[in-house]
């Protein structure tokens, strides 16, 4: 459409030029994702927060107002506190372990040797297995009588353990499966990160006489920090949503040593049908995740080196 360069108003003065209003177009484009976000994220969060204020369980036909009683019950419940502690332990152990293992694997496999593509595929393989089937296979590995883990232990003269049946070893055994499952997946991100690093800085470092250890900590690791943050975030999410392997391998036992926050929520809601308590525990989970997300957004993100 042809338009005059300067619009002239009724009094002959030029009218200030405004950017053409985008109208509803952008909102329309955002609508599909807004609907999904509202339906599956925002609405459930609000409705959990509301339900958490009621005694909504099998003892009451209609939900009864509870105020903060569900939260009081949570923080005086040994099982809830134990589940919270187990989740924290799960995160504190599996996040650094899987991230460091992944970096190490990536460093080892980021070179041109003959078997490298086979090895990359081998370490990536656990990622392709559904977690439930992987956990079932590990159930067999950990079997106290004929499981391969105990066969190895006996071969080296150790004492066989009931890995998943002993309160001392059950959580470490489950965490090991998570680390094994995630490390190969994270390795792929680090491999991609390593391959995009500029080679000139390494040449310069070598000329200056930096050894490999210094090169790693002074150059590689800082340059990989966006990858590390991304991978650590995924690992954090995986730690807090750990459920399948616990469901399949231990059912939260023995003595609740593998009961995590999410397992607790599931148990309250779908085993005991205590929806009020399940919702209250969900609120605690949401608060923790939001706190970590904000911390990431406003603190960690500033420390990360982006090119």
């Amino acid at each position, binding site marked *: 459409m042809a338009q005059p360069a300067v619009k002239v108003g009724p009094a002959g003065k030029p009218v200030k030029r405004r950017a053409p209003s985008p109208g509803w177009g952008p909102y329309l484009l955002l609508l599909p994702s807004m609907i999904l976000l509202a339906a599956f994220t925002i609405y459930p969060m609000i409705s959990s927060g509301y339900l958490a204020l009621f005694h909504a369980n099998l*003892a009451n036909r209609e939900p009864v107002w509870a105020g903060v009683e569900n939260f009081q019950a949570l923080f005086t419940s040994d099982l809830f506190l134990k589940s919270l502690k187990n989740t924290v332990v799960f995160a504190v152990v599996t996040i650094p372990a899987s991230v460091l293992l992944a970096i190490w694997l990536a460093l080892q496999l980021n070179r041109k040797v003959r078997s490298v593509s086979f090895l990359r595929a081998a370490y990536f393989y656990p990622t392709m297995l559904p977690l439930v089937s992987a956990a079932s296979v590990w159930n067999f590995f950990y079997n106290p009588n004929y499981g391969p883990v105990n066969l190895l232990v006996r071969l080296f003269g150790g004492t066989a353990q009931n890995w998943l049946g*002993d309160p001392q070893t059950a959580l470490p055994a489950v965490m090991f499966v998570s680390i094994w499952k995630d490390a190969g997946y994270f390795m792929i991100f680090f491999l991609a990160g390593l391959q995009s690093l500029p080679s000139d800085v390494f040449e310069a470092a070598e000329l200056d006489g930096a050894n490999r250890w210094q090169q790693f900590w002074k150059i590689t690791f800082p340059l990989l920090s966006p990858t590390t943050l991304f991978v650590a975030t995924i690992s954090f999410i995986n730690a807090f949503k750990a459920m399948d392997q616990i469901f399949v391998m231990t059912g939260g036992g023995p*003595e609740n040593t593998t009961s995590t926050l999410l397992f607790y929520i599931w148990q309250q809601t779908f085993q005991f049908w205590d929806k009020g308590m399940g919702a209250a525990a969900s609120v605690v989970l949401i608060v923790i995740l939001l706190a970590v997300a904000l911390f990431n957004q406003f603190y960690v993100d500033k420390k990360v080196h982006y090119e």
Partner: protein
Amino acid sequence: MIFHTTGSIGSIKGKLDPAKFGVAPLPAGKSFGSPTGGGNLYILKTDKDKQAAAWKFVRFLTEPARVAQWSADTGYIPYRKSAMEAKPWKDAVAGFAGYQAAADALQYAQPELATHNNQQVLKAMGDQLQAIITGSKDVKTALAQAQKDADAILAQFQKK
């Protein structure tokens, strides 16, 4: 040797030579025991026709001859005394004595635990049983804790 439900006798008998295996009741420590379980039939309060139809269906499912046939095929204990006298069950016991061994254990059975918040109470007991089995608590302490936990779960139902 397996510890298993009597409901597996039928399928095991189909895979193993019945002459080569037998069925025994659970061994006793201080006293015999026999854990029971099973499904229930409910009729919900709706309109009269649906209730009558449901009742007809319940009677169909629980006819002595049908119960006896079901038990003979699966190994599940007949859930009516009259079914124990019915021909399919008598024939099954005559053909394989293991059926009777399982049914005999019924005399040591207790009613199933049924209370408010049953799942929570069962978990309170299960947690303490695990503590006894893993050796982290002695029987007396663990059972006292189970009682305490169950009381706490049921407190809301006590008359004040």
